[in-house]
């Protein structure tokens, strides 16, 4: 059985539906990330788990104990640890007092509070800083205080609400790995909210992509990137070419022929062949890095198109070519040393194994 179970969760703010009857399960010891653009309901979902928002409908069960269905367990009674987006480190308390705040409420003997507090300070790399005030710490250090405070009571569940979004880019990358290894070591079941897909990829066991209050896809990072469930997910995670067209004919081995907007036939894979009825409007999609280019016409029979380089964009370690194929613009990622210039013609090979049909 899952460690956290969310069923049929529904929450509105005034008239706006923030979370629309979603269903989620978090396995014990897993890091699950809620990923999506702002306003997709990811933070609201997390806050419902914490008890900071009261859902209108649904069930939330943590470790077999119902937190919300008919009754409502106060956040102070849920035994969770939470890291807030802005850290919420209390500025009027010293670092140590911040960290052991929850322990003191539990009326744990002074001696063990002291020990546990120092232990956690050590764990997050703030040993010896307990007597400082938060305003004497850098952003990154405050972040560690927030983390230490969330960990000090050995919570069953750790919730992290965009914990790295206030840090600068370098520190953010470093903290991703630190948080991940820390959480792993402690074997904590965690729910992590972010809008940064790279962060989600690095940190998660599984990712929940959310779109305007609904779950768009739940999968491992690899699956989400390689087999996006729909156009929204494909668009949100990484770069993707969408070529509109309609299905002409289903093929064996989960393949289809699509007549593209630029009038040529394109062979693609399709996840569910039963949905691929001829005449259906679809998007033939392929990642920019999966397209091969040739200056001379190669041997391949299928999915070979000729186009002209309309724009060339230099991004350091690689180039983007925007190639005009009969009016459709296709983005291609190539190594930085590829010499072709704007205006030159290219042959594009879109390997049918890497083309997918999305709806």
């Amino acid at each position, binding site marked *: 059985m899952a460690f956290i179970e969310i069923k049929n969760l529904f929450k509105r703010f005034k008239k706006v539906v923030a979370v629309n009857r979603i269903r989620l399960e978090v396995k014990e010891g897993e890091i699950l990330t809620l990923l999506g653009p702002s306003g997709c309901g990811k933070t609201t979902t997390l806050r419902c788990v*914490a*008890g*900071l928002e009261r859902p209108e409908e649904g069930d939330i069960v943590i470790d077999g104990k119902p937190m919300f269905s008919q009754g409502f367990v*106060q*956040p*102070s*009674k*849920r*035994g*969770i*640890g*939470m890291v*807030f*987006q*802005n*850290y*919420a480190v*209390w*500025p*009027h308390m010293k670092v140590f007092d911040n960290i052991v*705040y*929850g322990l003191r*409420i*539990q009326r744990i003997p002074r001696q063990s509070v002291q020990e546990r507090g120092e232990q956690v300070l050590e764990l997050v790399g703030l040993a010896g800083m307990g007597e400082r005030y938060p305003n004497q710490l850098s*952003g990154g250090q405050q972040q560690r205080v*927030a983390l230490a*405070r969330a960990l000090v*009571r050995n919570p069953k569940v750790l919730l992290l609400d965009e914990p790295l979004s*206030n840090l600068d880019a370098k520190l953010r990358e470093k903290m991703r790995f630190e948080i991940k290894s820390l959480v792993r070591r402690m074997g904590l079941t965690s729910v992590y909210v972010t809008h940064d897909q790279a962060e989600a990829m690095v940190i998660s066991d599984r990712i929940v992509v959310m779109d305007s209050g609904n779950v768009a896809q739940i999968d491992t990072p690899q699956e989400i990137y390689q087999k996006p469930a729909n156009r929204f997910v494909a668009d949100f995670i990484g770069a993707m070419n969408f070529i509109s067209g309609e299905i002409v004919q289903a093929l064996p081995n989960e393949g289809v022929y699509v007549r593209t907007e630029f009038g040529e036939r394109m062979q693609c894979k399709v996840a569910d062949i039963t949905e691929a009825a001829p005449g259906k409007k679809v998007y033939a999609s392929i990642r920019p890095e999966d397209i091969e280019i040739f200056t001379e016409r190669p041997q391949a029979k299928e999915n070979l198109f000729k186009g002209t380089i309309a724009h060339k964009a230099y991004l350091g370690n690689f180039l983007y070519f925007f190639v005009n194929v009969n009016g459709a613009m296709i983005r291609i990622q190539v190594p930085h040393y590829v010499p072709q210039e704007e205006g030159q013609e290219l042959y594009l090979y879109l390997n049918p194994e890497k083309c997918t049909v999305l709806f």
Partner: protein
Amino acid sequence: MSRGNLFLATLLWLVIALLVIYPLSILVLESFKIAKTGGWGLNNYLEFFQDAYYLKTFGNTLVLSVLVLLTSTLFGVPLAYILARYRLRGKTVFTALILLPIVLPAYAGAFAFVIFFGKYGTLNLLLMEAGLIQTPINFIFGLHGLVFIQALHMLPFIVLSLSAGFTNIDPSFEEAAEVEGAGDFWRFLTVTLPLCTPSYLAGAVIVFLWPFTDWLTPLILGKVDYLPSIAYINIAYHFTDMHRKYMGIVAVVVSSVVCISLFLLSRRWVEKKKYTGLSKGTTLEGRVIDPGALMKLSAYSYMFFITIIVVLIPAVLGLAAFSRRWVFEPFPTYWTLDNFRMIFLETPALIYNSFLFSGVALLFGIAFGLPAAYLIVRTQVRGKDALDFVITLMLAFPGIAVGVSYLLAFWKDIPLATHWIIMPLSLFARRLPYFLRMAHSSYLQLDISLEEASEVSGAGKLRTFINISLPLLLKGVFIGVVMFFIMAFQEITTAIFLYRGGWETLPIGIYLNWHRGMEFGIAASMAFLMVVITFILLLIISKIGGGILKAAWGPGGR
């Protein structure tokens, strides 16, 4: 740094030098003068602090300050919490009523409560008629009444500063405490309240200083042993008795020193403790809760209770204003417009003077405040922080110090005191910070790029100010203007020292009618008239925007 700015700064400094620094230094100098020999020395201070009576007066004032602060805090904390956090119907109306005392003259409240709670006042008479008591209870005369009246008058300061604190706390600070397992009360005690201390303190210091300023309320309640009251009596009534005069001046200087030091200390502490959250998108209204049925009921009853006390002021004054011979009766029986006939027909000069002096003071205020706000917010002109500092300091100066220093300074060498212009000038000096603060905070909210865009388009500084800044500032400035006018209109602490025959204003008229002829009816009707005028002005403000909360406190909460 442009020449124009420097010129402007010089001009403003000259005004400050003439109207603030010069008279206040004369006051301090005078306190070191030895009356008998004409020399200089510490004698006056030694006498003051060796005299058991003056020491007692000093102690009384401190005790009163502590009691007033405690009382207003005790009543203010729940009120501020309700206003800031609970979603309740009709909250705006309650807020407006509860905050009314901030704009009503302090003496209006004192009069009303003396009539209502006095020995043979309405409440005692009603209780005796009902047979609940045999002899009247002393509700109001004495320390307890003084604390009650002053605490109620200052309650809005506590409520406004605390509720600004409650609203501005980043919600996640409290959520973090909840997640960590803190119950409601523990969270309030360990997180919410401590985080409010800086904004609480900003209001608390103003409250604490009030008993060092208000000389009239103790007199109305028949007490004189407080620093401002004794200073007033010594200086105004015993001007020829050199000893008493100098003791009065020392009392004024001592009060000022206490006020200024406390004010500066609290400011330093607040600066050091600025708790700002990191949240990017905190909501404007902060954390608002839908209270449960029981909490709702208690919240409403509490607001209702405070509102009733506040509303007593205009109600009782109204009853007194439209009646005569209201004695030994719970309610007046003889109704008449006589009081108003007296005010409007026999002494119309009082109303005329009030409007004239406040209006002229207001013109000074605008002419000074707008350029000052501009210099302080928008330029890097040298000495602008000092300018800001001196002006803000006027918030803490007891009005009595301004009055006495003007009396001493503008008599012989610069004989301004022989012309009525001294009245608006003193009002202007005393209420300087009010207008400036409002202009200041509106200026801070005005995005500088709007002005820069105008300059890039080719407009000069002055044209930019007139075409862009002024229209955008207008709302804030207008609220500042009306607030300034209300404050100037009810001013008595300063004016009482400077007025001469023919320069009486409404507040002075109230005092004289009460004091000389015990003409309570006329005094009460004048007070009622002032309440009405104030109320109309307030209505204008809240129509224009922001409501009374913002009007009285300025955007941003400080």
